[in-house]
């Protein structure tokens, strides 16, 4: 068994410890908000936060999560209130198909935690590991900027 915390709740899962965390989240824990995009760690659709670091869950064997804390896109609105990044994306309709957006929300939320005053260039750079095919890039960057804490 592998034990870890997901969105604040302790879980234990069986099976092969080399199974990707993404598969465990989606199939064993029912957390399908983390999307499978490439299985190669190259598109960012499956991003989760593992002890404070954003990782592609498709390239993270579940044993690596043992005893650690995982936050998924669902965890960002766990109290029923969307994360400011999610609210801003909805306010600005900053998505088209929305398949990439879970991983982008996770990455952008982590960025604003670390760098609350990130500017447009920094946001875009931070999202370079996330692919968007529909061409919503600039809307998404603008939404992330709008989600920053208002500056004094």
């Amino acid at each position: 068994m592998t034990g870890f915390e997901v969105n604040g709740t302790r879980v234990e899962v069986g099976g092969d410890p080399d199974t990707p965390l993404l598969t465990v989240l989606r199939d064993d824990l029912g957390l399908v908000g983390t999307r499978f995009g490439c299985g190669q760690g190259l598109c960012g659709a499956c991003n989760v936060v593992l002890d404070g670091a954003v990782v592609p869950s498709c390239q993270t064997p579940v044993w690596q999560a043992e005893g650690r804390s995982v936050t998924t896109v669902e965890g960002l609105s766990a109290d029923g209130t969307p994360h400011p990044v999610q609210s801003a994306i909805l306010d600005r309709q900053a998505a088209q198909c929305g398949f990439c957006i879970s991983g982008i929300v996770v990455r952008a939320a982590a960025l604003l935690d670390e760098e609350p005053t990130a500017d447009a260039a920094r946001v875009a750079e931070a999202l370079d590991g996330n692919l968007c095919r529909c061409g919503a890039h600039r809307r998404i960057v603008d939404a992330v900027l709008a989600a920053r804490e208002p500056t004094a």
Partner: protein
Amino acid sequence: MTDLAPHVITNPRLGSWVSVAGSGDGALVEVRVGKAELGQGIATTLAQLAADALALSLDRIRMVAPHTGLGPDQGLTAGSLSVLQTGPALAHVGGVVRALAGPTSPVEEYVARIAALDPALDLTTVAPLAPGGAVAVGRSEPRLDLPDKVLGRPRFLADLRPEGLLHGRVLRPPSVGAVLRAVPDGWTLRDGLSLASSGIEAKVMLVRDGSFVGVVGEREADVDRALEQLRADAEWDELDLLPDPDDLPRWLRSGAHEEVPVLEEDGAPGPGPGVVEASYSRPFLAHASIAPSAGLAVWTDGGVHVSSHSQGIHGLRDAIAATLDLDPVTVVVEHVENAGCYGHNAADDAAFDAVLLARAVPGRPVLLRWTRPDELTWGPLAPAMTATLRARLDGGRITGWSHDVWSTGHSARPGYAGHPGLLAGAHLAEPFPLPPSTDPPPAAGGGTTRNAVPAYDVGPRRVVGHRKTDSPLRTSAMRALGAHLNVFAIESFMDELAESAGVDPVAFRLDHLTDPRARHVVAEAARLAGWDDEPPEDTGRGVAYARYKDRGAHCAIVADVEVTDAVVVRRLVVVADVGRVVNPDGARNQLEGGATQATSWTLKERMGFDARRLLGTDWEAYPVLRFSEAPEVTVHLVDSDAPSTGAGEAAQGPTSAAIANAVQRALGVRVRDLPLTHDAVVRAIDAIGG
């Protein structure tokens, strides 16, 4: 009754379009259209049209997904036609409902009367009330589907988890034309995986029919591992069938073709002295959707039920039935959303893969998902194309024009050329071949020749397409089809002619345009982009214009492009006239996305291959535009009362041409072959130097 909406004539049953769920205060009117949500926001736009047609508020409407058994057959969700075709149908349906179930307030009583209408009612036999006012239409209503997607709720096909679910994977051949020689005798899975010859008591079951091989199992992790072991051990006979990827224009012009005549006017120029001539090209492109294609199927005694993100569920149903010799009535296909769809991708093929796997485990739902490498290389590609343009110039005027375009076909959709056209069908022991791709008919805008006729007043014209019919690579419709390369060619050539004539590119276009809507978008784009101002250092500014399919949206774009080490698109100013706008922000989003995706095609994209295998198997080998490379895009919609057109395919051709024209103005170098990579620009500079 005259002027009936065509899609009402073909789908006359009221119950196909409208039903009521629930009762009293919570009752919702369910509207089922045949157009699918592909990530373009169409469900929201059509909900707005339905709300006004039914004289209901938007929150009383629930859009339900296309379904072959329950909803209307509206053909494909393609060609920027969804609003054009569905708007009049919904207006009629709503007009009939109001005529029969009105008055429309109080709303609970109105909805209750709708619920009491006979679903079998023939909509063509009742005179509809005239349309009421636009309440929802014209507003930037937020997308109905986005909250689920942004908050990470189940919404996509691969999120379905029905009772008894099995997971499936298919081992695709390593190359086009490869034949499975053997899965070695006595082959077994390793590392704790066990194989079942029948039933699914063991962890993984192998499904084989000819060169079609798949695995089904209870656990996704197991089928993924089984697929890798199978891939490592399967032996294939491969063939060297692919052309030289570095000489596609010559390959496109060689071999067998079907001629696609468009225009042949007396006096159009051929090659010769005094005739300006240039050739342009683009490579094969991948759809490169962010999600791999998927399908869910359940095989039962009564038939097969399929969930698919197909653009055309009815065509898919018929193709599945034809391939497996089933009565189409026993095949039910319903649409479930997946990641963005930009044309005929692998959705239909994945649905059929799911059916083949489900057939081996009757009664159990099988969720089949493609791999990323298969999605990039086994989905239909967008055709490689090349065009040669010729024109005569007399002073500042064009006095004759010819356009020859060579392409592989732009349609291999299910049912094309009388064939089911499903990928796995070609791999079965008794195969269904995949004949050369065709083109949509001229009435649907054509494929190879889409937008090959210039919008300009150019004197006598000759326009001919040459569709290559002996390509080993399966190509099909991707956003804008042939319009992308044809507009890129025409609008690049217009700049070359303007330069020859010594006339400013905007003025040169206006000199040759008579349609006031066309003239307006060109002039407005130039004004908003500050065309007459000096661009920043190292920056070139280019313009381009087209009217999609000659009858759709007018779109003019001005690109600001900085050329240093790489080509960087800083800004695109887009002015579009899409007629009456149903959802302004939705239309802007489609134009922004179209222009941004076309920037990716223009700067980065090219499917690579060697003599045998496609090489663009991941996001490093098939790179697409990244966030820090995405241009600022500003979209201006022209106020218009003209009939609504689509917006999603208007920007692609103008974007590519405006970028190339800007590169030319920045460097003095004309790059005529896409993509405009650093290497391509260097080659073009070297060509001038040499």
